[in-house]
């Protein structure tokens, strides 16, 4: 069964029925935002049932849209947390990703600035590798990006999208080995992205991210995961009630092939491993429960079918 990411936007009136209907169809609610009297649900659900949900929600004036970024955790990497990059160039990209359904984090490097002096440390490298995808928001000069980018990508195993002010072709030509995606014409800027041209550039970022995420999803579909991350999220929510008391924006962040669980690793790791998914199958049988480098959180990496011979 292929789960497809969608966004549901609607009012609170009879919302419980929508939620029940999604769950009855075998869908999972990954994130829920309440904005005044409007509710936005980010959902992973079976593809063939989407039209049923559309029909069901029509009388309630609900809106169902496909949003490929739901269920991904993306990191926006910037050379530092200085005023040079914040708030606009970094936050605008991160916010745009968020409004398109992704869970986005910003990572400002300790010493990522400069050309010759730029460097990436092991903590930053590991943190970036915990995400599904990294977007590098770099500066205005081609020669500078050419010198510093190889240093900033060393050891990164997740797909990278490189953005900068030079044209896309220039970035593509000077990056060796190539990365997963490029967006030109962005670079460092100090103003808010308001004009149509600015927004268009952000749309290009989303387009590029969607392309990379689609390819990654296809790759996973070829060797399916032993359990869907969304299902694992539902189980954890049910079995570990303490997660309700975590006030981070996304206590369980769903990724393409795992989850980030914002609970202490020493306290909860074994509990998570022992959770029963179905019959005799425990979480520990189908996934690696690892310490995350983000605070003391837990990182869950789901193993594919080829490794476990189990699909639940």
């Amino acid at each position, binding site marked *: 069964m292929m789960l497809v990411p969608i966004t549901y936007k609607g009012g609170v009136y009879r919302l419980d029925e929508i939620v029940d209907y999604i769950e009855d169809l075998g869908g999972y609610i990954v994130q829920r935002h309440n904005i005044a009297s409007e509710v936005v649900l980010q959902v992973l659900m079976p593809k063939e049932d989407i039209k049923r949900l559309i029909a069901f929600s029509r009388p309630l004036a609900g809106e169902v849209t496909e949003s490929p970024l739901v269920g991904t955790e993306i990191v926006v990497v910037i*050379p*530092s947390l*200085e*005023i*040079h*990059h914040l708030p606009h160039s970094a936050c605008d990209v991160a916010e745009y990703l968020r409004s398109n359904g992704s869970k986005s984090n910003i990572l400002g490097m300790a010493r990522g*600035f*400069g*050309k*010759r*002096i*730029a460097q990436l440390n092991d903590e930053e490298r590991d943190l970036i590798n915990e995400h599904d995808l990294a977007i590098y928001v770099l*500066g*205005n*000069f*081609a*020669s*500078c990006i050419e010198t510093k980018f190889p240093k900033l990508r060393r050891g990164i195993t997740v797909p990278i999208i490189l953005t900068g*002010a*030079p044209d896309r072709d220039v970035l593509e030509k000077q990056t060796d080995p190539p990365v997963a995606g490029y967006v030109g014409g962005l*670079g*460092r*800027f*100090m*103003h808010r992205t308001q004009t149509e041209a600015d927004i268009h550039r952000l749309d290009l970022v989303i387009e590029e991210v969607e392309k990379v995420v689609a390819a990654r999803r296809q790759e996973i579909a070829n060797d399916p995961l032993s359990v869907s991350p969304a299902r694992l999220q539902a189980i954890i929510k049910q079995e570990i009630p303490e997660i309700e008391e975590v006030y981070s924006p996304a206590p369980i962040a769903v990724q393409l092939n795992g989850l980030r669980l914002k609970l202490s690793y020493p306290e909860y790791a074994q509990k998570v491993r022992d959770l029963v998914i179905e019959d005799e199958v425990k979480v520990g049988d189908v996934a690696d429960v690892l310490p995350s480098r983000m605070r003391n959180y837990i990182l869950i990496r789901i193993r594919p079918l080829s490794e476990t011979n189990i699909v639940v």
Partner: protein
Amino acid sequence: MSGLDYFEVECTEDGSDNYNKIATTVLQDHNLLGIVEGLHIYINPAYPLFVATGFIRQTRSVIRVSDVGNVLIQDEKATISVGDETYLAAMLKMFWQKFGHDNVDQPDRFTVIIKNVDIPKDLREWVVIDPSESLFKDLIYAIQVIAPEGFKVRRENYGKNRFSFAASENTLPAEDIEKIIADRFAKMEETLR
């Protein structure tokens, strides 16, 4: 850029348009557009080197006690009814220093009373703040924001009505910078005067 009589970004590589925009936004955000008369930015990403040179307009006049509010002097007592709160904090600080905390009273938001001391006759003329003192600090801070990040080796100079700023991540080539700064000042002077 509006407000500036001379503005140019010179760059040895593509990218001057972006710096044009960055400089405009930063100067605007820091309320410096009215103060800077001319600005020339030179960027060489190959070295890398960033040099900014500029002229400053005659600065705003000083803020006196009479600019903050109406002063009424009676015998041993002076009452100031505050009209503009912007510099009130600075004025109070000055009074406390000169007259002592006990002798300066602020019964409500818009009234300051000085008593129990000899009131100087020229109280109205006392200078609360001289904006030009902090001007260069603000200006150099703004230029630092415009400059590419990570240029930790810096040299800044300011005189009566001009300033220069050079920065790099490598050692600054002193002679080259002198020449760049002198050339750019000459060019600006030619256009402006």
